[in-house]
């Protein structure tokens, strides 16, 4: 048919291409770093060269968990942005900007202070925090129908409030378990260890669920009534998507703190290239978001001459200007 590429064909092309991108990102993430030279790492991965126990430990005990964490967090955050943008019909919606990430960070810290372990206590607290913020944001968007300002301003304020609470809690706590403030406020992947990976597996069912609801998400863009008339159970789909997304976000926040703007950058770039079909965008966001955060983390740990910086600095430096450009464009042609 003229002007139409069947979805399955698009899906295959996009998935293959972006999987390639992800593989490249993973390989670079494993081989590049401040310690040990890159060429030796390549040799080791290819199974050639002299066995080097130290390098092997660096690659598999330090870098591998970190790359996997970056991939999981990046995928979850960009998918979260995609879902929020469609559900709230606001191109600037994103877990960080809406304050949902902030809410789950507050929950997580409270969980730690209450003496809970990572699973299930801290994860549940974090999930509850993100749901509470989401509820607040939804109420805000309901009261002023169609007003994108109310939603964004509300999100910014919730974010500022959560930031203050986080700093307050960290300041008064004597627990060593509460890590450095920068971890929570700017996002950091350096805490990654093999122990934290199993919990991250929880995001995989979330990915699948969102992929299955991609077409209803398309139909929802026509409006709630039309979608309903075309066979979408709007209330159920919306509820499932919101809960899944905040679960996914809170799981990642527990591991990485607040990493902003990934959910803004990736969906926007992909929509420009691939169009608006969520059945294609969901897997695309997943793979690109994963690759993107691996690259960002690579920059964060290799750019500074001493130590490393928080990965959130890199994503904000890319994402915040993009946010301004998008806001500018929206104002100009409403």
């Amino acid at each position: 048919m003229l002007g139409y590429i069947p979805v399955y064909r698009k899906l295959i092309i996009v998935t293959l291409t972006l999987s390639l991108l992800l593989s490249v990102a993973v390989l670079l993430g494993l081989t590049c770093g401040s310690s040990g030279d890159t060429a030796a790492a390549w040799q080791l991965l290819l199974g050639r060269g002299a066995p080097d126990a130290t390098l092997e430990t660096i690659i598999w005990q330090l870098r591998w968990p970190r790359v996997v964490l970056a991939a999981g967090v990046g995928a979850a955050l960009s998918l979260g942005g995609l879902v929020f943008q469609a559900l709230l019909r606001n191109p600037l919606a994103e877990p960080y900007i809406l304050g949902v990430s902030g809410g789950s960070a507050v929950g997580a810290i409270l969980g730690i202070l209450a003496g809970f372990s990572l699973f299930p206590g801290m994860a549940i607290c974090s999930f509850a925090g993100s749901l509470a913020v989401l509820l607040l944001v939804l109420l805000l968007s309901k009261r002023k129908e169609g007003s994108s300002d109310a939603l964004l301003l509300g999100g910014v304020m919730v974010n500022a409030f959560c930031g203050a609470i986080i700093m307050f809690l960290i300041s008064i706590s004597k627990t060593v378990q509460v890590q450095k403030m920068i971890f929570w406020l700017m996002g950091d992947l350096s805490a990654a260890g093999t122990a934290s990976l199993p919990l991250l597996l929880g995001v995989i069912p979330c990915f699948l669920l969102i992929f299955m609801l991609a077409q209803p998400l398309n139909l929802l863009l026509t409006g709630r009534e039309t979608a309903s008339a075309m066979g979408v159970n709007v209330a159920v789909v919306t509820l499932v998507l919101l809960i899944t997304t905040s679960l996914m976000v809170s799981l990642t926040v527990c591991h990485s703190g607040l990493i902003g703007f990934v959910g803004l950058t990736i969906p926007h770039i992909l929509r420009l290239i691939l169009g608006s079909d969520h059945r294609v965008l969901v897997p695309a966001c997943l793979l690109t978001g994963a690759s993107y955060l691996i690259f960002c983390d690579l920059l964060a740990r290799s750019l500074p001459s001493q130590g490393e910086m928080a990965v959130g600095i890199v994503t904000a430096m890319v994402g915040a200007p993009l946010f301004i450009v998008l806001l500018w464009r929206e104002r100009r042609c409403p």
Partner: protein
Amino acid sequence: MSLIDIRAVSLQYGPRQVIRQVSVNIGQGEFFVIIGPNGAGKTTLLKALSGLHPLHSGEVLIRQRPVGAYARKELARTLALVPQQINADFPFTVAETVLMGRYPHLGLLAVEGKRDLQLAEQAMEFTEVIDLAGRRLGQLSGGERQRVIIARAICQQSKILLLDEPTASLDPAHQLRIMDLMERLRLKEQITVVMVSHDLNLASAYADRLLLLKEGMVEKVGTPREVLTSAQLSQSYGCTLLVDEHPLLGTPRVNLVPEKATARVTGHREGV
């Protein structure tokens, strides 16, 4: 046996009663038009038919089954709705939009196959939008967009088509195109058409039966000849409306009477 059975339906928006005790049957393959003054509850009744609006009392049966007993997808396979307002900045192409009509027929992952593409193509040919397949919805004119949405409804393959003022804001040529399309669909596919319209002359020329609604209540149900009389319309719409005959079809033709001519109405009526 009637296809759609509306039994003593009442509907409320908050405390306001919008539909009161409406009962009517619509048969298979019928061209049924709902008319009435603004705020009569026409659109609300149409939404009640499509299960989008919870009933306050009474019931709507489709094929002898209450609308509420259908699962959403099943209902979408039974009836398709063409809404009045279409989101113009809908970010999809014409082909993608029409293909969305296949959603109630697809499995869990909602990926269309060859057959779905064929059906979408046929629907677009039928409503003459196939040449626009690659264009975005926002780039189309009102008439084109309306035909795309009708193509989507056709692609949905439902035997009942509900339309909410599909000819509003279209010029005469486009109005006729849409109405003729409905007529052909009905003859070709045995589709039942239920339409809300403000255009009494279009309703008269195409409808099998009309439902005249006022303040949420049924004023009259019947053929255009039975419903569209000067006395009935003038009383229901609260303005003078003169009815004579369409020169070719012989169906009632409704004429508006401007204020400057109202003095001559009585004499004219006697003349007819």
